[in-house]
């Protein structure tokens, strides 16, 4: 970096360069450390965006909306890399991963961070699409990294469904360009967010409608919305746990971010269809479906994957409802869910390593045998279930109350879904955390810092939200319309 420091370039270049470096370097300790350092530097550059951001260029754009996403992504990316260092160390000891794959794993981790950051800062709908496709392909490779029967099938399923989704999204992207071309003119400008958002009102409404349906189906697949969610539980369960954490905590958000941008574009055009009801419907279906599916889970990671579908449903629902309050609640819920769910996966990863299995039936009495992990998991589940005083309680409460004020019938379904999900989670948690100890009870060589850092943040957010953050979220909520 020269004296002229460009945080946006740093957010992209640091992961890209470290990916190349990590692909070349051998050894576990130095590469794991380098991975942590790289993600930390990326996070710092992302934070510096709060204090000064460059003017939007033809390809890159940072505004109030994606700034939040970038900081959240780089933060969870950083903490996950800390967790990943200890997790992968254990996997090497047990021989599930070989050193060659380790090099590959670290390089892919950085490529994934690069792709997600690129998708977030892209000012061009084409570049955004490419970045999301790149992120998908990287995670496909990571999910299949154990090369077991199950991992391969999960990766294949993810690959096929993910590519279909991505293909539909590209078709939608092309249609948006078709709609913009007569107004803005040919060339790059007709794919730039900044140009699209200023002239969006003049676009052909019919074309935009069809485009949005394709985009909703395409990116909705990546968000994990209900009829299109089939890849999600498998991918979460069979990949390495750090990847499950990043998938749930970040990649789903990135896809949702793309969807939100297009929703804002449609909102500019009064003649176009209202995207809200579509999103509300898909969100509610995901929520209720996932809540019921939680009951019959036998695999701990699959269970939390379904919980992610449930929460993405709530978030999509909130954004679909729209309005300052619901959007605010959606943003807050998204942030809280990212933090909490990745903390849970940090705990689950170490638990699965201690027990040598992911079967819920083979786990028990964790709070007695491994108190820190056990209570960490309990805290995480309490948080994700939305009990006061933690952060998710507040965001869910806001979603529910704002819905009750505007559409009481939808709120009843919403509350029902949430309650069904909570009951299922506690039912399973009871067996895992309390009762007779089952399975191996060795001490875990774990790093607890990332997990408790996330949980502390969630707790603090539940008790006290800094006014600056509230003001920022309110501003973004207004932008979202």
């Amino acid at each position: 970096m020269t004296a002229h420091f460009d945080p946006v370039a740093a957010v992209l270049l640091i992961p890209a360069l470290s990916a190349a470096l990590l692909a070349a370097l051998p050894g576990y300790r130095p590469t794991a450390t380098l991975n942590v350092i790289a993600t930390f530097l990326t996070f710092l550059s992302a934070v510096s965006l709060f204090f000064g951001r460059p003017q939007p260029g033809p390809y890159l754009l940072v505004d109030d909306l994606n700034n939040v996403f970038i900081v959240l992504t780089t933060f969870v990316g950083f903490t996950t890399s800390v967790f990943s260092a200890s997790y992968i160390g254990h996997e090497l000891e047990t021989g599930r991963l070989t050193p060659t794959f380790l090099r590959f794993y670290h390089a892919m981790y950085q490529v994934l961070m690069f792709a997600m950051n690129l998708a977030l800062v892209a000012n061009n709908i084409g570049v955004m699409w490419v970045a999301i496709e790149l992120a998908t392909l990287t995670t496909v490779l990571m999910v299949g990294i154990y090369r077991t029967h199950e991992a391969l099938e999960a990766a294949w399923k993810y690959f096929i469904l993910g590519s279909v989704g991505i293909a539909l999204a590209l078709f939608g992207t092309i249609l948006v360009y078709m709609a913009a071309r007569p107004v803005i003119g040919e060339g790059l400008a007709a794919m730039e967010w900044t140009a699209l958002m200023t002239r969006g009102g003049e676009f052909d409404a019919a074309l935009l409608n069809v485009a949005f349906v394709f985009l909703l189906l395409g990116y909705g697949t990546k968000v994990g919305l209900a009829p299109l969610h089939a890849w999600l539980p498998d991918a979460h369960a069979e990949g390495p746990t750090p990847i499950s954490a990043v998938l749930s905590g970040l990649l789903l958000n990135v896809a949702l971010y793309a969807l939100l941008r297009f929703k804002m574009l449609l909102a500019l055009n009064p003649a176009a269809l209202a995207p809200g009801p579509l999103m509300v419907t898909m969100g509610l279906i995901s929520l209720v479906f996932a809540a019921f599916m939680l009951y019959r889970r036998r695999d701990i990671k699959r269970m939390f994957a379904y919980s992610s579908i449930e929460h993405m449903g709530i978030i999509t629902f909130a954004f679909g409802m729209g309005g300052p309050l619901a959007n605010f609640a959606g943003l807050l819920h998204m942030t809280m869910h990212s933090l909490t769910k990745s903390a849970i996966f940090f705990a689950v990863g170490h638990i699965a390593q201690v027990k040598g299995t992911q079967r819920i039936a083979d786990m028990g009495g964790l709070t007695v045998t491994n108190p820190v992990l056990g209570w960490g998991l309990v805290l995480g589940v309490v948080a994700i279930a939305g009990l006061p005083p933690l952060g998710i309680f507040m965001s869910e409460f806001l979603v529910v109350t704002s819905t009750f004020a505007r559409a009481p019938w939808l709120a009843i379904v919403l509350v029902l879904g949430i309650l069904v999900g909570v009951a299922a989670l506690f039912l399973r948690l009871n067996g895992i955390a309390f009762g007779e100890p089952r399975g191996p009870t060795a001490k875990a060589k774990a790093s607890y810092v990332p997990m408790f850092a996330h949980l502390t943040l969630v707790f603090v957010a539940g008790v006290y939200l800094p006014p600056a953050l509230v003001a920022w979220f309110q501003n973004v909520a207004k932008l979202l319309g």
Partner: protein
Amino acid sequence: MRGLTFDVAHLLAGSLVLVSFLQLYQDRLYALLNMFALHAFVLALSVAWQAYVQNAPHLYVTALIALVFKAIVIPVVLHRIIVRLGIHREIEKVVGVGMAMLLGMGLVALSMVVMLRVTAGADPLAREDLAFALAVVLLGLLMMVTRRNAVSQVVGFMSLENGLVLAATGAKGMPLVVEISVAFSILIAFIVIGIFLFRIRERFDTVDLQALDRFRGERR
């Protein structure tokens, strides 16, 4: 001249849909690969014609990529994989030929109805192209869901991507960024698939996905 340009573009895009139908009922992998090569060849012609009509030289690059990479390299490589794995026998399908064809016709009708209605304002060339492109995309999807064999699913996915390229070139003046990225993504996707096929081979001595279906997701 205007009439001729339109007619040729129409003919080529229409042939692409036709070849998609031809792919749909192939029951041998070799024949399927040949049909895919033809599909990519027609696409290359169609893109080249668009480049000529729109006077957009960068589109020739896209046409060349389609010709060299998709019509020649990929079919040859896949052919080799099939020979090495010894799986050139019949492909197992989920639904019969008749049913698949009927579904395919329904999808084509659907894409015509949807696209022609919403693009009423656009110029006729782009309209037709977009409608055909959607038909090709949907037929590719149909192929992916009606086949159990991994190689033919991959072929379905690639013909779906061909439809996307057709749509992208039909949208006049769409920046090169997208075309190249589409080409690149196919390349990447193909590498991914290659790795997977070999891994699957390594583990289970089969590329028939039905053999993988024992695992239904949930651990037993």
